[in-house]
């Protein structure tokens, strides 16, 4: 029986390859930095591909909502093994708010009747952790957050997700499909693109979907500004040569009686 999975991917500023953040207006300078796939979403995609590897007749669509810069992460998703890449061409003034993104994606997904929707547990840049649950709320789907493992029972059309809680505990929950699960990092390292999928990702067109932008949900919050954290005066930066710094720390440790 066919089973279809949608993985939602966000393009985030690429800091892993040495990019640095500069502030422009109320947000960062988005033209001064490269964009890559949100790390948490890469784990969601890996979870979907692992499900696909273990069964037959499973399709994985990778979707990203936003301006043209989201096309690179979509292409990367296809290179990792997604069957189709979909660009939901939302072009907001300013950043896409979680509720707006959730509504656009939910409206798109509703027409496709996916059995399972996966998102990252949060985004590396804005760190809201709410877009996935809001998509679930908009589609009235059962939802499990921060899953580190997903086991799918295709004949039963249900899944069990192992979800992280505080203090190293995890709860196992069962959800009937269709369902939405947000994926936490950790258990599996996202795969590198294979050569054959990389070639496919270059040849295969990314589908462009135009969002239904009729009535919106709530208007977004006012984003006033971003700033680098103020250094508190209570942090004493130890200066000097390497040896002087080491000796200063050792004096501190010794004075407290911590050293052997």
């Amino acid at each position, binding site marked *: 029986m066919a089973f279809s999975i949608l993985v939602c991917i966000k393009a985030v500023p690429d800091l892993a390859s040495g990019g640095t953040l500069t502030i422009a207006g109320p947000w960062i300078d988005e033209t001064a930095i490269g964009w890559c796939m949100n790390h948490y979403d890469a784990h969601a995609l890996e979870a979907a591909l692992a499900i696909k590897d273990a069964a037959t007749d499973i399709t994985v669509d990778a979707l990203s909502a936003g301006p043209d810069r989201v096309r690179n992460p979509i292409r990367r998703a296809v290179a990792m093994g997604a069957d189709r890449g979909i660009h939901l061409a939302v072009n907001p003034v300013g950043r896409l708010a979680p509720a707006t993104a959730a509504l656009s994606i939910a409206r798109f997904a509703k027409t496709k009747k996916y059995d399972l929707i996966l998102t990252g547990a949060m985004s590396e840049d804005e760190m809201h952790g709410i877009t996935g649950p809001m998509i679930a709320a908009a589609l009235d789907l059962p939802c499990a957050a921060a899953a580190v493992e997903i086991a799918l029972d295709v004949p039963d059309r249900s899944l069990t997700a192992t979800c992280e809680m505080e203090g190293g505990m995890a709860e*196992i929950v*069962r959800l009937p499909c269709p369902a939405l699960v947000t994926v936490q990092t*950790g258990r599996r390292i996202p795969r590198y693109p294979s050569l054959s999928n990389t070639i496919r990702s270059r040849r295969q067109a990314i589908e462009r979907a135009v969002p239904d932008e009729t009535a919106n949900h709530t208007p977004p919050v006012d984003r006033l500004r971003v700033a680098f954290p103020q250094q508190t005066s209570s942090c004493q930066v130890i200066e000097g040569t390497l040896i002087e710094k080491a000796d200063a720390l050792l004096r501190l440790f010794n004075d407290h009686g*911590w050293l052997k």
Partner: protein
Amino acid sequence: MIQNKCPGTVLIVGETIDGRLSAGSRDLGNQARRLAGQFNGEPVGVLTGHDIEQLARSWSKTAGMRVIVLDHAQCRYPNPPLTASGVGALADACSPLAVCFPHNLRACQAAATLAWHIEAHCITAVDSLLKENGHFVIERAVFGGKLRETVSTGRRPVVLTIMPGLFSPSVSLEVPDHSPSVESRLLADTNHRFIPQGINRRIDTDQALERAQVVVSAGRGLKGPEHTGLLDVAAGMFKNAAVGGSRGACDLGWLPHTLQIGETGRTVSPALYLACGISGAPQHLAGMRESQTVVAVNTDPKAAICNLAHYAVIEDLTVFLPVLRERYERMRDKGDGV
């Protein structure tokens, strides 16, 4: 009962884990009166769980607020859909100014679901809150703590998840003399599509991290698994030390996940926390912020960890830790101080 037309209410939503208060909920309770004060409102606690009246009484007494228990057999562990529907019914009844959850990913799910249904703004990981001209001005960390974002909303209610230690020290103030009331309600069986199956508890082989006087901890600044030995060598200088790591270092397989310190891992409060190559994402700080002395070794003087640290050494840990050990040995050989 919360009466209709009580527009000054701030709902403080706590969660229980198998009959005990979650760490975030304890902290949120301690902040409840100050938090509600920021909104010029009165806190009303909402505690989800099963058979928790006794616990609710003690939470109510410590926090100095009325508490409504939302009881359901499927709430022995935090249950986001049931919490969202139960709190949603309370919010419909009393039009609160704000609904505050502790910050963790499950509470974010409950907050997002609630906010969606009541068409409220949902702002997570709040670590600063002010009221200006009738608007709430809220600060939160973005980019793993590299930047701080300030947002504002005038909509009510606003749904928030609150970082621990929003108000420092996080102790309740002005707790009234009388014992506030505790009222229990059975949650309706509305959700059959989120079915708890059981709990996995991490088996910690020991409590060495929790008991250690000194924790030497590393993040992505470790650069690779080949450098983990440096942590053991550094820990070896101290009388009672253990090695831990950030989620980043553990996810990359450089350190085992059992050593992960942070919101979803272990919580430590040693005399000395030596944070090596750790940027200081809020989720990591949640697991070590009670440490007495924090020393950061980091190449980036703007790293968020430096805001919490008492001392910082701006160096690459792979260069600095060997020098530190070498100077330690020289000091020991001389048999005196540095």
